[in-house]
């Protein structure tokens, strides 16, 4: 699989300081990479550049197919007038016949433990259930990459663990590259196979942890050390 790389990216919002200045980063295809950094450090901007929502002023993105990406946001962005099933089906309708989209959506919602809520409207679902609909939608879409922006922020700890487990199980059955932006160390540690600690202004990589390092002892302390080092 072709490597995914951001090469010497420059990005600044009009009239403001550089957020990304000659920023380079590699992502291993097929893994879950968490970008961890304090709020407001520019990691969402980085995610938007990866997703093609923001055009960098300089530099190249190599190996990212921005045409086929799925997204999971903190706000679930599901349509209030569509049932859980129809929300998952909606982005698929231009890509496949309805019956096929419905079958796929139903399977994923069942995988997300939502068999009994398939035909409910969002106002009848809890916050966690809505987020599971958004996850099912992201996996149902035939993307090569899922971008997540603080997707589990705001959920309480036990609910977050529960949803993260469901996410990981679904990902194992439907593997693809995942880039997850978060400021939550717990979330990143539960999810990441690779973790990139970001900080500073302009944004830079402070440390990169591989899966073996993440499984090592005292990793939490090391992460906190990097997160709290002065920029």
């Amino acid at each position, binding site marked *: 699989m072709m490597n995914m790389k951001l090469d010497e990216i420059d990005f600044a919002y009009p009239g403001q300081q550089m957020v990304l200045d000659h920023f380079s980063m590699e992502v291993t295809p097929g893994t879950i990479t968490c970008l961890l950094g304090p709020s407001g450090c520019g990691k969402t901007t980085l995610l938007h550049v990866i997703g093609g929502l923001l055009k960098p002023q300089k530099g190249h993105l190599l190996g990212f197919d921005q045409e086929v990406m799925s997204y999971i946001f903190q*706000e679930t*962005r599901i349509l*209030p*007038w569509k049932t859980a099933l129809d929300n998952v089906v909606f*982005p698929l309708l*231009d890509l496949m016949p309805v019956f096929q989209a419905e079958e796929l959506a139903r399977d994923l919602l069942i995988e997300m433990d939502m068999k009994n809520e398939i035909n409910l409207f*969002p*106002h009848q679902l809890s916050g966690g259930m809505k987020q599971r609909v958004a996850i099912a939608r992201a996996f149902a*879409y035939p993307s090569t990459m899922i971008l997540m922006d603080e997707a589990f922020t705001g959920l309480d700890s036990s609910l977050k663990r529960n949803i993260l487990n469901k996410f990981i199980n679904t990902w194992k059955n439907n593997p693809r590259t995942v880039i997850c932006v978060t400021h939550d160390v717990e979330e990143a540690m539960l999810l990441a196979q690779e973790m990139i600690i970001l900080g500073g202004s302009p944004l830079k990589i402070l440390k990169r942890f591989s899966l073996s390092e993440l499984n090592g002892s005292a990793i939490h302390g090391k992460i906190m050390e990097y997160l709290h080092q002065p920029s």
Partner: protein
Amino acid sequence: MIPDQLGERYRMITLFSRNRRASIASGVVLLILWELVARMMGSAQILPGPVSTFRSLVEIIGQDGFLQSIGLTLLRGLTGFIAAFISGLLIGILSGYSATFEAVFRPVLVTLRSTPVVAIILLALIWFRVDQVPVFIAFLTMFPVLTQNITEGIRQTDPDLLEMARLYRINPVRVFTGIHLPALTPYLFSGISTAVGFGWRAVIIGEVLSQPRYGIGSMMQGAQSYLLVSELIAWTFIAVSFSYLFELLLIQFRKRMIRWKP
């Protein structure tokens, strides 16, 4: 913010049903007061009591031309509404999508909304046949209300949902039918409710002044000319009843259409 004017009316109507005893008691008190004031006035030609008004209502219903009057007023209102709805939908959607289009059209809407209905009727009397005047008035009264609500509905569509659609590369037609239109529905119902309220009154005023052969307004004008006050009040009662009935139908329809709202 989703306008919930119709929801508020629904709550009021449900409240009315729930506290039916209190509402009936209040109605009875009003009728007694009406009867007392009518007796104090002592002239049925100035203020008839509820009993003689009810008698007039029964007589009106049995009269020749009753159904034609009701039917033609409804038809005029409906024709004006359909014309206003189609043009309001077209202009409202275009204004919602394009700020320039809205800026071009805004003066027209503001002028229409602030021009006194009577001024428009007087002009319409010169331009149109008498039976066309109420239709024209209904159209001009309802059109700006519907257009502005539709524009607002398109504008207020949640930008996060539109961004989601853009990210998932959903085609523009589906974005319109799957996101903009449903988001617009509450605004549309609110607009229809307000517009029909104004439009119904405007049709009747139009009929009063243009005097087509049949119509609720024509009948009211006829009754007023002969000082048949009880008949005039009976026709008013009929007009109000139709307005109330429409509101109830609209609320039921809204409940079916907006099942997704808590």
